[in-house]
């Protein structure tokens, strides 16, 4: 049954009061002298008071001492023993205090054990962290070295990329110039094709006219042959006239000679002979002129005939040449047309290449920008790595400090002695 300590003192006080009240009453039933009757009640009250006080004080002192010993052990770090007040009939606040101390002890055991485990783990982790930090620091330094190499490589790459971009822009400009030249060439080829077609039409018309001229030339040759034959016929007539004129001249001359021989009688005849001779001379001169003219005509006709005869062979050769020229013109026109189409194809390809070059230039610009960004990022990475190295050094130092603190904590906590179960 629980009775609180205050009630226990009140109960003792009541017992003392009861002794004071009851003992005189009881003493009266005794045949004691009056002095005894007067002395016994106070003594009985005092005895009750002493007994109650002794009993309460003894229990209180023993239990408080037990509690004090327990707290001293706890203060000294001995957490192995719990407070045991024993089986009491009337537990009070001391039992509560002992229970609280035991609860505190249990908590302290758990806390110390936890601190011990945690500090050990923290020390181990701090050591691991320190080692890891050192490893990370070493790795970071290697990364920094590598990053510097990468930065140099990136810088060189940036320079190379800029040169490549410059070359690509030059190539793009060159492609654009080639495109312009090809466009002009394609236009020229197209114009040449049109001109070749027009030339072929004109040449075919010319060939037709030339064929007509060749036919006319053949007819002219035949006409020249006929004309030459006619000239020869006229020449024969002229020769007859010339012969007649010469004979007439000779007759007139002979007549004049005979007239001169006849003297005065022949004068009239001589005049007639002279006139006849003049006529004959005139006729002969005319015949001579006709003959000379016919000879020239004949020579010219023979020349023309010779030329025409010679031209007949050339006409045949000319026809073959015309056919060959027409065929060659057709082939040339086809060739020029093929060339124009090929130039168109080449222009299309060049335009695609120019477009591709433009895309490549844009891509190269982007690559250059990326390379520049890479260079900046690499620089930032290098700076970050420097910062990281410093931070890792700080962290390693902090880990070392933490390990030392954990060890110190462990050392400080190690003075608490725990039961085996708690340590386990």
């Amino acid at each position, binding site marked *: 049954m629980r009775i609180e300590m205050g009630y226990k003192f009140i109960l003792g006080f009541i017992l003392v009061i009861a002794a004071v009240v009851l003992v005189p009453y009881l003493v009266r039933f005794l045949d004691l002298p009056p002095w005894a009757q007067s002395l016994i009640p106070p003594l009985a009250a005092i005895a009750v008071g002493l007994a109650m006080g002794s009993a309460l004080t003894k229990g209180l002192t023993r239990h408080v001492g037990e509690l004090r010993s327990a707290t001293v052990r706890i203060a000294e770090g001995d957490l192995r023993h719990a407070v045991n007040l024993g089986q009491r009939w009337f537990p009070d606040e001391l039992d509560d205090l002992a229970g609280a101390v035991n609860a505190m002890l249990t908590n302290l055991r758990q806390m110390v054990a936890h601190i011990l485990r945690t500090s050990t783990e923290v020390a181990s982790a701090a050591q691991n962290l320190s080692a890891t930090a050192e490893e990370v620091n070493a790795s970071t330094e290697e990364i920094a070295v590598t990053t510097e190499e990468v930065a140099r490589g990136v810088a060189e790459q940036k320079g190379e990329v800029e040169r490549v971009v410059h070359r690509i822009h030059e190539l793009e400009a060159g492609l654009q110039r080639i495109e312009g030249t090809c466009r002009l060439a394609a236009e020229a080829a197209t114009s040449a094709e049109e001109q070749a077609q027009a030339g072929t039409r004109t040449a075919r018309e010319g060939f037709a006219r030339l064929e007509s001229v060749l036919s006319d030339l053949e007819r002219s040759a035949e006409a020249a042959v006929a004309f030459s034959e006619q000239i020869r016929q006229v020449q024969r007539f002229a020769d007859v006239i010339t012969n007649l004129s*010469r004979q007439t001249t000779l007759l007139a*001359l002979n007549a004049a*000679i005979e007239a001169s021989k006849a003297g005065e009688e022949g004068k009239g005849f001589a005049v007639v002979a002279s006139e006849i001779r003049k006529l004959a001379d005139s006729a002969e001169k005319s015949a001579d002129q006709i003959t000379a003219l016919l000879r020239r005509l004949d020579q010219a006709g023979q020349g023309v005939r010779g030329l025409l005869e010679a031209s007949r062979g050339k006409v045949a050769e000319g026809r073959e040449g015309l056919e060959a020229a027409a065929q060659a013109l057709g082939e040339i026109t086809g060739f020029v047309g093929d060339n124009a189409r090929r130039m168109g194809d080449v222009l299309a390809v060049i335009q695609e290449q120019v477009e591709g070059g433009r895309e490549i230039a844009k891509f190269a610009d982007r690559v250059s920008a990326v390379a520049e960004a890479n260079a900046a990022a690499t620089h930032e990475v290098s700076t970050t790595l420097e910062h990281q190295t410093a931070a890792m050094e700080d962290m390693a130092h902090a880990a070392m400090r933490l390990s030392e603190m954990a060890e110190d904590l462990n050392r400080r906590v190690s003075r608490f002695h725990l039961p085996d179960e708690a340590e386990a």
Partner: protein
Amino acid sequence: MSAAPVLVVEVDGERFGILADRVQTVVGYQEPVPIPGRPKPLLGALNHHGELLPVAHLASLLGLKPRLDPLRSVVAVVDWEDGLVGLLAERAHGLLTPLTRVRVSQVLGRWDGPFLDQTLEVEGSRVHVLDLDAMLGALAERIR
């Protein structure tokens, strides 16, 4: 100055005159039949109205370059001694008589060529009148 008419012929670009009295006729050129062993001036012989007519080249007789134009050359048949002789000239220019309008300017005297009787100047052209007897006599001497 001689007023006798002459037959004017042309030889090697020069004009020569033959007295018309000595000319029987003038015929056109016919190729003479060659006579074996003949001297150079004698070309051959022609059939002249059934008679054998010896033909001499006037240019050869005068020492000039002989030329032949079959269409214009003539043979002047002249009297010589008892026969006829043909003289081949390049062409005949006509009969030069006082009846013609030709003006005989003057007698220029003997020419330095052979067989020339006299030289006349007719309208700027010179006509050398031949001495037929001397010329044909020299030919006869060469034939003999």
